[in-house]
């Protein structure tokens, strides 16, 4: 579904991604772990072109994301993204947050979009918050809404960048539960996280990133129980 070929990304002189080649299949739940500053976010953000790669190619369902001729807005409709800081639209209530993109992009009528939004809100037990504004919600509620806001676009893959890192500990569970349900329903997911329990339970494949490269990868048991590289062992010993 996603093909990454020799991806490089530099900020000014500093190379942050140093040649990543990776393939992600439909239905996979890829979990990316690694130390801070290793390029996890940058890699994820290149996948939907929030960052423009310096070189290399990214194909999504066979279409080049990196080709300037590609309609990137069209491609992004099929790739949901969830951010560490939720990024709900502060000026809009929850219903408008969820319907803005589908309605403006003429994918749904307003009535259809609102019906779908209510269905989605029900799935995360927040249907009573449709009229609320983001500032009136807790972090966990905001993130659950950010997830279903993405789902309202009916994406084929969901990208998560540390979705629970900004949450108070007691709210981490409710967000991970939503993500687990999404995984069970067969969504293709790429998740950057420090929640190793989630990675082990939900991940179909773990990528360990260090210094702008994927230095080790495998199934959860391969990575967590039998890591091969010293750097991976070192990292895991600190977080587990």
């Amino acid at each position, binding site marked *: 579904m996603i093909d990454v070929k020799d991806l490089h990304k530099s900020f000014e002189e500093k190379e942050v991604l140093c040649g990543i080649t990776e393939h992600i299949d439909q239905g996979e739940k890829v979990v990316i772990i690694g130390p801070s500053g290793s390029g996890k976010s940058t890699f994820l953000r290149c996948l939907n072109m929030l960052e423009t790669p310096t070189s290399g190619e990214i194909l999504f369902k066979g279409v080049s994301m990196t080709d300037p001729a590609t309609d990137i807005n069209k491609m992004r409709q099929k790739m949901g993204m969830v951010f560490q800081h939720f990024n709900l*639209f502060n000026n809009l209530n929850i219903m408008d947050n969820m319907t803005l993109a589908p309605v403006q992009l003429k994918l749904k009528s307003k009535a259809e979009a609102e019906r779908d939004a209510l269905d989605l809100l029900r799935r995360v037990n927040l249907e009573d918050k449709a009229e609320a504004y983001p500032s009136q919600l807790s972090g966990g509620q905001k993130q659950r809404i950010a997830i279903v806001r993405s789902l309202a676009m009916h994406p084929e893959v969901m990208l998560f960048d540390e979705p629970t890192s900004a949450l108070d500990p007691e709210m981490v569970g409710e967000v991970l539960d939503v993500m687990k349900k999404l995984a069970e329903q067969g969504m293709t997911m790429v998740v950057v996280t420090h929640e190793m329990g989630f990675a082990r339970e939900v991940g179909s494949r773990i990528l360990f990133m260090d210094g702008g490269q994927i230095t080790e990868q495998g199934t959860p048991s391969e990575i967590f129980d039998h890591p091969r590289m010293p750097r991976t062992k070192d990292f895991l010993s600190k977080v587990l």
Partner: protein
Amino acid sequence: MEKFLADFNQSFIAGDRWLLYLKGVGITLEVAAVALILGVILGVIVAVIRTIHDQQHPGRQNAVLGILNGIAKVYTTVIRGTPLMVQLLIMYFVIFSNTRNAVGVAMLTFGINSGAYVAEIIRGGIMSVDGGQMEAARSLGLPYMPSMRFVVIPQAVKNILPALGNELIALLKDTSLVTVIGVRDLTKAAQLIQGKTYQALFPFVGIAIVYLVLVMIIAALIGVLERRMRASDRR
């Protein structure tokens, strides 16, 4: 006491002088209002050009946009780097030396001047909106312009309005400079009357009070607007 009344009479009432002040206030308000409208239009255009230019993807630079951005930068630098009175003199005695329509030139000059400041106010307002808002909109597949229109600009306006109000107040007070090109605004009215009656206290203190009252009215209106926005905000 008698002298006080006589001076007052001579400064404001004799020869229907109050009419001169009234006309002056009219011109002052007209110049400020037209200049503000012009300034906001210019400011929005310049701010949009500069913001779009700065938010382009590196490596996908647009040449036309580059040139427009260059012009916008020179404009704000020159306008903000030279005295307003000098701009007024150049406009009236050099660029539009063939016209005697001093009020028109004053409106245009103040509008162009105000545009440079308004552009920076708007740009600052847009930049003050958290970048994550734009990213979230783009990640949903919304193009740049709708993301700006529905998400970023509504949040920027909240930061822009108070500063824009201050700009209007500064503009109103600065219009007294138009006397140097002979526009008969409120300040000029006082000068004319002083020349004729040799009274300085009443005319000048009088117009100072008028300016102050005008500024206080504008400030109050802005306050109402801000409170109303905060109320509709529910945040």
